[in-house]
């Protein structure tokens, strides 16, 4: 087990200049399934990095290879400047991990599980503080098997912080949380960044990604299809506003594209989105087209483009929860 002195030495050795995590041309195949196909990214220290993607995109596979829990088919990963497959013990002492599925001792209490995991590491966070930060005070003495799904999820995230890690991996940390608990967890994550920690998280929630992440990569079918800060991604893809409505069966896309000011059209039946630089022209044209075709525009809305639109534009699909 690493001593305190050891930890200081390695921190100097790794230097704050090495990225917190790095993935280089990562591939992972399960039998005939190509889950990850050539993913590369770098997570700078002190940032919150997000992986966004639909079910089966390869997020969990990527993050668990970084954590040393799965073997890559090819490619390299570095965590805190080291290879986790060679330097496992040392690296694992300094990272925190929350798995997508909570994995707890059913017969132990919340407090006991936290204390148990704390003994595995050379550094320790204050268990009572964690219990407070995650709103687990009232259930601290209950067996984990008696917790609600959301409480288990919170404990699972709390466990990832039990060693006061430099780098935290969170795989869908807010899934299953009520809105209040979700916002509370966002606060905890944002505070980690304030303290100089690095967070690598996966999510399905656009709002979460937009609010938390400094840097984001959108993964689809095992590949990165877009990367940048949330604002960058929106600005790069859209200079426009979005006019959205519902129509079933879907309209002719070409006809919509010819309307005045329309830059692009995305259809995900029954949802239709027209992105425009000339809102007045487009609206006038659209209403005229609709009445000429005799088709109603249900739930007509105008809004600014969001990450959701970026996702729809890039993958051709909507990201559903």
């Amino acid at each position, binding site marked *: 087990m690493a001593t305190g002195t050891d930890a200081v030495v390695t921190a100097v050795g790794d230097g704050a200049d090495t990225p917190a995590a790095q993935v280089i041309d990562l591939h992972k195949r399960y039998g005939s399934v190509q889950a990850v196909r050539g993913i590369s990214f770098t997570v700078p220290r002190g940032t919150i990095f997000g992986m966004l993607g639909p079910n089966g995109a390869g997020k969990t596979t990527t993050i668990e290879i970084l954590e040393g829990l799965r073997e890559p088919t090819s490619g390299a990963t570095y965590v805190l400047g080291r290879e986790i497959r060679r330097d496992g013990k040392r690296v694992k002492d300094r990272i925190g991990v929350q*798995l997508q599925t909570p994995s707890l001792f059913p017969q132990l209490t919340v407090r006991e599980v936290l204390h148990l995991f704390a003994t595995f590491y050379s550094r320790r966070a204050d268990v009572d503080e964690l219990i407070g930060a995650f709103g687990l005070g009232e259930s601290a003495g209950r067996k984990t098997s008696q917790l609600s799904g959301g409480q288990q999820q919170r404990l699972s995230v709390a466990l990832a912080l039990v060693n006061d890690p430099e780098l935290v991996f969170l795989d869908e940390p807010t899934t299953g949380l009520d809105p209040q608990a979700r916002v509370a967890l966002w606060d905890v994550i944002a505070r980690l960044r304030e303290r100089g920690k690095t967070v690598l998280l996966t999510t399905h929630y656009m709002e979460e990604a937009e609010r938390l992440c400094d840097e984001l990569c959108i993964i689809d079918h095992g590949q990165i299809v877009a990367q940048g800060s949330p604002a960058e991604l929106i600005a790069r893809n859209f200079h426009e506003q979005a006019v959205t409505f519902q129509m079933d069966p879907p309209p002719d896309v070409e006809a919509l594209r010819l309307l005045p000011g329309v830059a692009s059209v995305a259809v995900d039946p029954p949802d239709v989105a027209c992105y425009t630089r000339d809102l007045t022209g487009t609206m006038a044209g659209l209403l005229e087209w609709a009445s000429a075709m005799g088709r109603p525009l249900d739930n007509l809305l105008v809004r600014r483009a969001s990450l959701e639109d970026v996702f729809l534009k890039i993958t051709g699909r909507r990201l559903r929860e």
Partner: protein
Amino acid sequence: MKDFWALTRAWAVSLRRDRTALFWSFAFPLIFIVIFGIAFKNTNPTYDVGLVLPQQQDPTAAAFVQGLQHVGSFKLHEGSESAELAALKDGKRSVVAVVRPPANASASPAPSGVAIDVYLDPAQLQATQVVMPILRAVADRVDRQVTGTQPLVRIEERSVRAQNLKYIDFFLPGMVAFSVMQGGLWMAVVFIQLREGRVLKRFGATPVSRPVVVGSQTLVRLVVSIIQSAVLVLAGRFMFNAHIGGNPLVLAALIVLGGLLFLLLGAAISGLAKTEEAAVPIVNVVAMPMMFLSGVFWPVATFPSFIQPLIRVLPLTYFGDAVRQLMTSGTRIAPLWADMAVMAAWVVVAALLAVRFFRWE
């Protein structure tokens, strides 16, 4: 080391709070003991021992016979060699002891020695498991009497006078071995729960090493097996006045060996089954034949000879035999070596199977 003890404590606390596990580990075998103890309270098995004595009087032979007469559960039949062996073949004798006169008595100035040939019926494995150690102990005592050496091990003295072997004396060691086996094999289900509940995987993301995880769990399980056996032995002793011989430390060592063996088999089984439900039939397929065939509670005499080779490969046969020899005759460790050697070989086999099949996720 800190993580080892913390995990050990966590496993132990988890087990203590798991009512189902406690029931199967402690209450269930205890209920078994009580039911069988009551049902067979007044059944004291006796063993028919054929004796063939030399023509002329021999002091050693006489001392041997006298020793046997003290064993209450032995019914002695003296007769000619051919008649006694015929009776053995007919299943009317458990063993036949043929006492042969000294080959060349005049050559040695020391007190005469006799050779005793013991004929067994292999079908009556269980009977011979009880009878043989007693015969050996009687012979041993006679030997010491005649040569004038002081008995070194008092336990043997006592065991020779262990007069009435009751059914419980016979059943209790079998139940101890059987319970240890069950505890180990059913760990397959616990390993699957830990695997499918991702607990083992979660450890993989911490600096805890796999040997620490496995070692702490093994320690807890072996201690549980020892406590479980102690509870059974004490229950047999105080509720049914069972005869308990043997050094408790030797018994503990046997339980550790047997516990390890079946724990490893349980670990191997856990890897073969995807779910808890799938593990149940596999455990039963492994446990059932041993339960019936290994002679831990049911006489194996009734099994036809073609099954005997199978009986002789089952690990529980040797584990049960060792525990029984130790408890009924308070034997020293020496006669147990053969059983322990086979068990050790089985530990190696089980370890290979566990390494081959056990899965962390």
